[in-house]
Structures are given as structure tokens and as C-alpha cells.
């Protein structure tokens, strides 16, 4: 077994010497502070309050998922965390730094993958390293390592359009992980995949994340997915989004979808969401 294969199996291949996280925060402590966040979209003839006075603390190393009725502003929260959208008021602190613009301390995985079609799989994964100014050989080595972690080392030279949906999302995941950001933001990453691929991806994601101390903020439509993956689930109300409830799940992983407590919790969260979805 080669060094890298060994590393993938044990998880030591997910290294963190480079791109050392800038904060001294230990796992389990609060890392991200969302304070009184509001967002209003103004157009000529209407004002839409998407988010009002939203506060939440996110702990380092946890996988927190956000569920809520359609159009409640889940994605807006994530895009503000990414620095792609500016809040109307309130602020987001990561460690002790205020987050105002995108930065390499946060990686993002998009629902529609957002891969560059003119780049090969490897070159897509290398993108963030290129931006960071890493030399060519090192870049390639590191990209290959992460392609190995997501199981796509054989496809390094392929073009994006030659891959299936699940493979594309694994490339996107490798691309987000490769710079070793403190936080990974995932915007319905498996929403475009079929149910079977989706389950495989969830299991794969857990396996990868087991080896890292990255904080994951996960937006999803699927309550089943949220219960399967999360340390905590944030349930939002309909727009303007407020926190309805935060559910802590401390069950060991991998979780059994058929177990009575799993189905009971899923049912309860679904019912909560149902109440929010009533058309008014």
C-alpha cells in the first residue's frame, strides 16, 4: 500500500500544515458568531425582508445544517457567510475577524457544482491553490491527494462534462477542501443528485469529515439528510427567517435511517416545517 493510499485510509492524508487556520479556537468552542443579521432586498416597487435579526453561534468542527421552508432565506444566510452578499445590518464574526468579503478561510460547495468546464478535473481542484500562489508541482501533488480522497484519482485528466453528477460534486468537494479552509459552506450540495447517489455522497462526506476538524454549514431541503449528517439542525421559520428551533443530535455515526429514534425525529422536524409551509 502506497503512502498516499495509507494516508487516505487513516485520514492522515488530509493534512493541515499548509494553510494553518488563523484562529486558536479549539474544537467544540464557538467559532462563528452571527449577530443580529438582517437582509432586505429592495427593488423599484417592493421591499423583501428575507432575514430579520438572525443570530446564531456555530462551534468549531461541528456539522450544522439549516433547514426551512422554500424561499425562507437559507441560501442568503450562506452567501452572507461566504461574503458574496452583504448584510443590510448586523455582522458575522469568524473567530474575532469580521467577515465582509469572500476569503480562502471559507470554502463553498454549490448546488449546481460551479465547476469550470474549460479546466480538467485536476485543474479545477488546483484553482484555489493557484490563487494562493502555490508552485506548480506542489499544486499538482496536493490536488492529486485530494482527488484520491474523494476517489477520483483516475479521472484527474478528464473534462467536467465527461463526469456524472455525483462525480462532479466530489470534484467540487475536493476543490473546496484542498485549500484546507476553516469553514466549508455547502448550499444544497446533493440537491441535484438522484436519491442513490445522494446517499452514497452523504456517507462519503461523513467519512472525509471524520478526519478533519473543519466546520461545515450545510443547507438542505432534505430533513432526512439533515438528521443523517448533522450535529445540530437549525429549523427556520418562513420569511423573514427566524430560528424556530435548534435540534442537537449526539447519536454516533453512521446513523441508521430505519431506527425508531431516527424516523421519529425526522417526522417531528417535518411536522415543524409543515406548519411553516402553510400558504397565507
Amino acid at each position, binding site marked *: 500500500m502506497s503512502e498516499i493510499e495509507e494516508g487516505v485510509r487513516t485520514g492522515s492524508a488530509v493534512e493541515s500544515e499548509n494553510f494553518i487556520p488563523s484562529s486558536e479556537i479549539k474544537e467544540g468552542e464557538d467559532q462563528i458568531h452571527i449577530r443580529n443579521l438582517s437582509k432586505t432586498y429592495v427593488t423599484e416597487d417592493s421591499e423583501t425582508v428575507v432575514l430579520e435579526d438572525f443570530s446564531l453561534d456555530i462551534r468549531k468542527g461541528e456539522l450544522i445544517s439549516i433547514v426551512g421552508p422554500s424561499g425562507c432565506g437559507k441560501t442568503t444566510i450562506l452567501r452572507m457567510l461566504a461574503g458574496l452578499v452583504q448584510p443590510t445590518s448586523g455582522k458575522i464574526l469568524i473567530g474575532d475577524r469580521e467577515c465582509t468579503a*469572500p476569503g*480562502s478561510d471559507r470554502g463553498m460547495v*454549490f448546488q449546481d457544482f460551479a465547476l*469550470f468546464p*474549460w479546466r480538467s478535473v485536476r485543474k479545477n481542484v488546483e*484553482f*484555489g491553490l493557484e*490563487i494562493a500562489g502555490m508552485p506548480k508541482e506542489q499544486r499538482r501533488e496536493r490536488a492529486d491527494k485530494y482527488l484520491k480522497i474523494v476517489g477520483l484519482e483516475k479521472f484527474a485528466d478528464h473534462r*467536467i462534462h465527461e463526469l456524472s453528477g455525483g462525480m462532479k460534486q466530489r470534484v467540487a468537494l475536493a476543490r473546496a477542501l484542498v485549500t484546507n479552509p476553516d469553514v466549508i459552506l455547502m448550499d444544497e450540495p446533493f440537491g441535484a443528485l438522484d436519491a442513490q447517489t445522494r446517499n452514497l455522497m452523504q456517507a462519503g462526506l461523513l467519512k472525509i469529515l471524520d478526519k478533519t476538524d473543519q466546520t461545515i454549514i450545510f443547507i438542505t431541503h432534505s430533513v432526512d439528510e439533515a438528521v443523517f449528517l448533522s450535529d445540530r439542525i437549525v429549523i427556520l421559520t418562513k420569511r423573514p427567517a427566524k430560528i424556530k428551533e435548534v435540534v442537537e443530535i449526539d447519536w454516533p455515526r453512521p446513523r441508521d435511517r430505519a431506527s425508531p429514534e431516527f424516523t421519529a425525529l425526522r417526522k417531528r422536524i417535518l411536522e415543524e416545517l409543515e406548519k411553516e409551509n402553510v400558504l397565507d
Partner: protein
Amino acid sequence: MATILNWTYDENNRYHRWFRTTVIAITSLVCFVFAWWDVSLLLNSTAIPTPLETWNALVDLVVNGDSVTGGRTVWAYIGSSLKTFLLGFLLALVVAVPLGLVIGYSKTIREFANPVIEVMRPIAPIAWAPIFILAINYTVGPILVVFIGIFFPVLTNVVFGVQKIDPNLMDAARTMGASPVQVFYKVMVPSAVPYLMNGIKVGLGVGWMCIVAAELYAPQLGGIGYYLSTMATNGLWPNAFAAIVIIAILGIVTTGLAEYVHKIITRRMGMSNV
């Protein structure tokens, strides 16, 4: 024999599709030649020679060169036209591509440039020919006419390409720490390439129309358009028609080449759907 008679067309077989297209194209050209022949015989005018007369003049031109005015080969005429064409084309690319990228990128620059573009674009490039040739000179004039013909299709396509870019790709680049300049040349420029190729395809067609017309005003250049006008003014209609056939063939070759390059590049870039 039986196998040929039992032949059935299979839409999923690329060779069948290719064969079908070729047969229809050849039939179309044959019909055209016969129609031309009919018109020529019916009008019985010397100004419209029959395809056979044209063919003979064409063979004579290719084999013996220009036997009427003496000396020059057909390749000299073609070479002169191609040179003008190529210079105009390169000039158009050098100017239109950066300009298109910038206009597509910045709303302010777009709003500034659009009125000028909209005023200039509807003017037939050929209308500039007498002005450029008289105001500048007969070498640069035709190049500028070709330039204008190719410039606008390339420019508008690049502008369109930059604006059509998937905003998610730019967001993805930004979340990986890319600066606005890096987003521009690592994301916007490559995603505009298929549109650029499309603009080149259209531009080459327009440019080819321009070159011949411009040469009518610049006899000193000695291009194929000059040969055409000399033959026509001397009433040598079969020779004039031979020149038209050469122009048509060169036009087909140019656009065919552009089509091919477009296909290769978009396929290599994984963007054949654009």
C-alpha cells in the same frame, strides 16, 4: 447489389447522416448549375455565360494564369486578396477582443460605448471602401474595410459572451480568494471564448464579402476582385464568372475552416453546448 438495394437509412449512424447530407448538398449544387444553364440559354445574353463557358475560363485561368492582361497567375490574385483579408482579420481581433471583454465587464463602459456602436454597426462596411481608399491609400483602405466587417460581429459576440457567463462560476472563484482581476482573466475570459469563436465565424463571412467589394475600388492591389472588375469592364463574361466561382470557393473554405476550429476549441474546452 442486393445489399445496396436493401440499404436503409439509420439516423443514429454518423456515416449515414454524413452520406445523407452530402447527397443532398451535391443534388442541390447540380440543380443550381442546371438552373443557371437554363437561365443563360433562355436570356441568350453574353453577360450570363453558361456553366460550361465559365468552367473553360476557370480552367484556363488556373492553368495558364491571366492570359488576357498577361503574366499574373491566379495564385497571385488570390494571394493578394488573402493578404489583405488576413491583415484586416488580425487587426479586427486585436481590437475587438480586448474591447469586447472590457465592454462586457463594465456596465459604465458599456453604456458609454453602446451609442457609438449602435450608430456605426448598421453602416454597410463596403460603404467605407471609397472613403478609406481615397482618404488613406489603396493598401490600408481595403484592410480597414475588412476590419470593419469582422470587427462588429466579433465585438458583439464577445460582449454577449462576457455577459452570459454563469454568475455561480464567478462566485466560486471569489470564494476561493480570487481578486476581481483574477476573476476576469481566469473565469470571464475563458468563458467568453466559445462566443468569440462564434463571432469569428460570422465575421469571416462578412469580411469575405467586404474584401472583393473593396478591391473594386483599389485596382492597384491586384486582388481577385480587381480581376473580376477588369474582366467585366472588358466584356469577358466567362472570365468574370470564373472569378466569382473562385471567390465563392475561397469563402466556403474560410468559413468551413472557422467552423472546424470552433468545433475543436469548444469541444476541447468542454463547452460544445454554447
